[in-house]
């Protein structure tokens, strides 16, 4: 029966090629637009470390001015970063399965052999950075707690930096020169592009990870300049970088790995106790407001899905709605226009159900063709967008889940557009039509 319906549908669609193309085109355009915006939205809002979402916590302490909150739009939010002394004190004393304190700096790499020196963006981090964030290694491994304590001059390179310095080969054990000092390479990362860059959303949320990783302690011993945001609230005279370490300026990120609710509770009461102690010393002028965020909560707090993407998503769905309404109108006039033929089929014994199914098959055919067209248009839209996003090209790759979503959307749109017209036509009274023949 399906074959017969398909043949009827095909014949019917062929009879009015202009309207058929218009219907397919309208749904395809709507699907193309929504696929494009959905992909960008999906990519932006995806939690890149969902598998560890429940155990990772971003740590914030409300160390800001008594006169005004850190974020006047969200006065309950504590600053996203910490001072050097607080980050260090908590890293040393807090009860957590794992903990990482980190910040950004930049150094100049000298590749030697007459090649010009170039800038590398560096993450100074404690050793738990790599296991906590599931960072994949191509060669070697990260450093250990001893290297952190002693400030050993060891380095982990990103895949790209290893390519630039050593042509991509296994460089573990080799020496890299940074700002005139020598560091021993102990690890090289495999391709690692967490999007968004969840572990530090303050300094370019869609940036690629740093070029090179060094033990955190080196930042203080070598007085490495900050390369990320430094925010200060307290009037303090700062003479050079040394003063920044003792200041109330915030420029460090802190994450804890807490595996059980009990661990979370213990950690929370530890940092609350820490701030209470500091208050006795005249620090932390605001009320105690220390918060722990899972990665999902952290992404939501930073509103990483830009406003524009959300507006575009809504607009594209409005567009799809217009397209569907349009097709409902077209189908209705098509079906009712051919009501005479339907009346004959009814008179010859076709039941209402059969008429309904026959028209739904026609609608389904339109929907399927439109889905294919929509996917093609979506791919075109994303390619066009890629030029508009440039450095964010990872945001504009059509993936499997989005392809499936587009197909589902097309079928849904087709059904929405077709159900009412198919229902209307199967309720046609054959007698009225047959009389005028």
């Amino acid at each position, binding site marked *: 029966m399906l074959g017969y319906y398909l043949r009827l549908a095909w014949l019917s669609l062929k009879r009015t090629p202009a309207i058929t193309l218009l219907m397919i085109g309208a749904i395809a355009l709507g699907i193309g637009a929504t696929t494009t915006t959905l992909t960008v939205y999906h990519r932006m809002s995806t939690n890149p470390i969902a598998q560890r979402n429940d155990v990772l916590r971003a740590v914030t302490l409300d160390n800001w001015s008594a006169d005004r909150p850190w974020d006047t739009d969200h006065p309950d939010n504590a600053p996203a970063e910490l001072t050097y002394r607080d980050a260090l004190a908590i890293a040393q004393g807090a009860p957590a399965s794992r903990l990482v304190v980190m910040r950004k700096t930049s150094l100049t790499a000298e590749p030697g052999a007459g090649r010009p020196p170039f800038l590398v963006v560096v993450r100074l981090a404690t050793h738990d950075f790599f296991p906590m964030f599931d960072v994949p290694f191509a060669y070697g491994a990260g450093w250990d707690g001893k290297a952190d304590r002693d400030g050993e001059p060891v380095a982990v390179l990103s895949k790209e930096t290893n390519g630039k310095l050593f042509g991509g080969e296994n460089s573990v054990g080799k020496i890299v020169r940074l700002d005139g000092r020598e560091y021993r390479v102990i690890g090289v990362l495999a391709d690692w592009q967490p999007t968004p860059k969840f572990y530090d959303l303050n300094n370019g949320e869609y940036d690629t990870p740093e070029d090179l990783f060094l033990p955190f302690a080196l930042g203080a011993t070598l007085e490495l300049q900050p390369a990320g945001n430094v925010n200060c609230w307290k009037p303090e005279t700062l003479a*050079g970088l040394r003063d920044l370490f003792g200041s109330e300026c915030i420029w460090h990120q802190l994450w804890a790995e807490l595996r059980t609710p009990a661990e979370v509770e213990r950690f929370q009461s530890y940092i609350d106790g820490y701030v209470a102690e500091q208050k006795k010393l005249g620090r932390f002028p605001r009320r105690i407001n220390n918060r722990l965020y899972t990665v999902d909560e952290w992404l939501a707090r930073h509103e990483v899905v830009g406003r524009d993407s959300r507006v575009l998503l809504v607009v594209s769905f409005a567009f799809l709605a217009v397209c569907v*309404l349009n097709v409902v*109108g077209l189908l209705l006039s098509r079906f009712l226009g051919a009501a005479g033929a339907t009346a004959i089929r009814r008179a010859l014994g076709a039941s209402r159900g059969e008429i309904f199914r026959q028209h739904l098959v026609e609608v389904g055919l339109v929907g399927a063709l439109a889905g294919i067209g929509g996917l093609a248009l979506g791919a075109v839209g994303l390619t066009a967008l890629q030029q508009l996003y440039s450095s964010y090209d990872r945001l504009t790759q059509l993936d499997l889940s989005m392809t499936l979503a587009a197909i589902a959307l097309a079928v849904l749109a087709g059904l929405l557009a077709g159900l009412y017209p198919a229902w209307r036509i199967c309720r046609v009274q054959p007698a009225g039509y047959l009389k005028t023949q």
Partner: protein
Amino acid sequence: MEIRPILSALLRNRTGALLVGLQVAITLAVIANAFFIIASRLEKIRRPTGIDTPNLIFAESEGYAPDYEHAATLSSDLALLKGIAGVVAVTSTNSVPLSGGGSANNYHATPDPKAAPIAGNYFEVNADFIDAYGLTLVAGRAFRAEEFTPVPANNDLPPVLILTETMAKTAFGAEPALGKRLYDENGKSGEVIGIVSDMQGSWLGNTRPGPQDLVFHPNGGFGKTWRYVIRVRPGERDRLLPQIEKALNGSGHGRAIIWVRPHEYWLTRTFRADRRMVVFLSTLVILMTAVTALGIIGLATFQVNARRKQIGTRRALGARRADIVRYFQLENGLLGAGGVVIGALLAYAASGWLTNAFQMPPLPPLYVLASALALLALGQLAVLWPARRAGAIDPAVATRTV
């Protein structure tokens, strides 16, 4: 012509009319808001930078060698750059205008640190900055060469300051700013010795400090980084850029030249999201309007075909072609009017969402009105072809089968 028969005919094909009316309504709601967003983005992109953007090159130098000399590198670089034929003026600068990165400070118009702070976006520059950026001195004087401190001892305010016109108004209102003092939160102060024409600062769309609230400090900063603004003669930028890069790279000093770029590089980056929004929204607006117009044509064609006999009868009874055409135009006008009224409500609902969720300014009525008129005109245009075809129906043929 009477409206009543048209209305009753429309009511007979309620579904078709409702569908087209809804399309018009949704389209209006979207395009009114989209036009408003597009217009505000375009205004932002086209806002003048206040500086000589087409002829500016920026460069960054970062010291790395153990024997790197920060202050000495600066004076040598300035001499080197000024010596290149085609270079008009050079200054060091801590940040690049409109790059999204920069420094801000809380200033006070009185020594009292409890007074409400005045946020200012500060630029650390040397004595030649007015020429190098391509600004004009509005009042007072420029920095003198000896007032520039390459490496300041601490973060205290320098003794002399220059403000933009906007910053002078922000800090001192209608009073003349020249000769007044600005204080920092440590109680240190600097005298305002000059006022320069406005330029866009580090951040666009900021409120505290505002985008043109700039304070110029005659000093360099801590650390090993220098950035330069190099203004060249008109039309020479692309020729000089590689030459400047080569000269800086070849001059040694134990530092790396991180980048040498035209100012437009940052403008492109800063406005990328806005351009994207303009392109994407315009595309959707065009497609949506086209689909709606096709919907109107489709419905009208269906109505014409369904009413061939009635039209033939009317023609036979003396209606002229123009009457038939006008009938369909009026019908479309009624439909459009209904759609536009609902659409205007939807447009304000959407605008309310945008205001609530994204703190966007409310939609000005002009955009709704203009979009509504445009949609009504489009409807008339779209219906013209099917209406003409209706007018062309031959009464003899159309009534023959009755």
